[in-house]
């Protein structure tokens, strides 16, 4: 059996444990409805299991393959929903950008969650909130040079996480 292939129920369980959180997070981001997102994840794993023998780890990782399946599932669910009368979904707003753009946005947000708190905080304060480095340094009680170092190491950490998630620039 090819390593990483998804042929038996046991393989599906292992793949679910490794990737369901990410798949669900992105499905929720795309569809804006937790119930639909779970439906999408379930359909993704069922389709992956049905097509397990066609998976070739030499072409791409299992994660990449699952996301490719999820892409089709989300498109199918989106079409089905478009054919039905619109129902306001409370909570998360569905993504309106194209799939690849939505996937990249979600990857960056997920990567920001995964980097260290110190690094995330300086990136949020300086970049997203546009606050001066000196002000942030004073608030954190560290020299301004330390804030700059944390920005540097924060971007490096972000790069590593994105690479782990399959992003290639």
């Amino acid at each position, binding site marked *: *059996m090819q390593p990483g292939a998804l042929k038996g129920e046991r393989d599906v369980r292992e793949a679910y444990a490794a990737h369901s959180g990410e798949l669900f997070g992105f499905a929720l981001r795309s569809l804006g409805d937790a119930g639909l997102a779970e439906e999408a994840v379930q359909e993704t794993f069922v389709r992956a299991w049905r097509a397990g023998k066609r998976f070739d780890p030499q072409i791409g990782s299992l994660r990449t393959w699952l996301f490719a399946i999820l892409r089709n599932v989300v498109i199918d669910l989106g079409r089905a929903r478009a054919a039905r009368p619109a129902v306001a979904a409370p909570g998360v707003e569905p993504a309106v950008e194209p799939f690849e753009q939505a996937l990249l946005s979600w990857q960056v947000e997920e990567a920001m969650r995964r980097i260290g708190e110190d690094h995330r905080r300086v990136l949020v304060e300086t970049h997203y909130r546009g606050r001066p480095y000196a002000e942030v340094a004073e608030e954190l009680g560290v020299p301004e040079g330390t804030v700059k170092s944390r920005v540097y190491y924060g971007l490096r950490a972000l790069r590593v996480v994105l690479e782990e998630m399959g992003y290639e620039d």
Partner: protein
Amino acid sequence: MRTDGPDRCREWRHLLGAYALGDLDAGERAGLEAHLESCPECRAEAESLGAVAQLLPLADPDRFGRPAPQPSALLGERIAAAIGNEGRARRRRRHRRFGLTLTGAAVAAAAALAIFVLPGDGGADPAQHVEFAALPPGIHIGATLEPHAYGTEIRVYVRGIRSGTLCRVSLVGPRGARVPAGTFRYRWGEDSEAVLSSALDLSRTRAIDIRTGNRTFVAPVKGTGGPNQEETT
């Protein structure tokens, strides 16, 4: 002022993040850019971080400031059930097709075989997943045991052993008696799931063992409880 060399790199590198985000003042930026002119390593790092910095506007801090959403705890079980049901239906159809192709003298043998391979009462008793612990690195073995009227269906998953290895599977009864469940040969690159069966009821099964070459792996089985759990001989 010299702007190259490892020491200079250390001095300038911590500014590369703020530089990538366009946050350096004119003096720092001019000094760093002079260093980048003479240092290909720092220049490559600056370009790489610049690509990462360009992605930041794609993220919404309100979204990543919240914990990552998680699916309900039952989703995994729902998926396992959906796949299990479809797998059982698929096997049932395969067995039926197999039965229909047999003719003449083979019919009698097929009737006997059908008793052996057809699923029981539709799965009123739950299948049991068995984990083999303390396996050597790289080897994965698991099994799912499902009770049937004829005994127990055993689905064995193997990964990581030498291709071509003969695997002998047995169930172990209450008094340690081994009841053979069959053999299969592990082939790398093919489906590692073997479907076997044993006449021993799952309720009376205490363990499953798999012999691969000169090694034997044993995993305990809980049985399914009930009045038949203890051997009465």
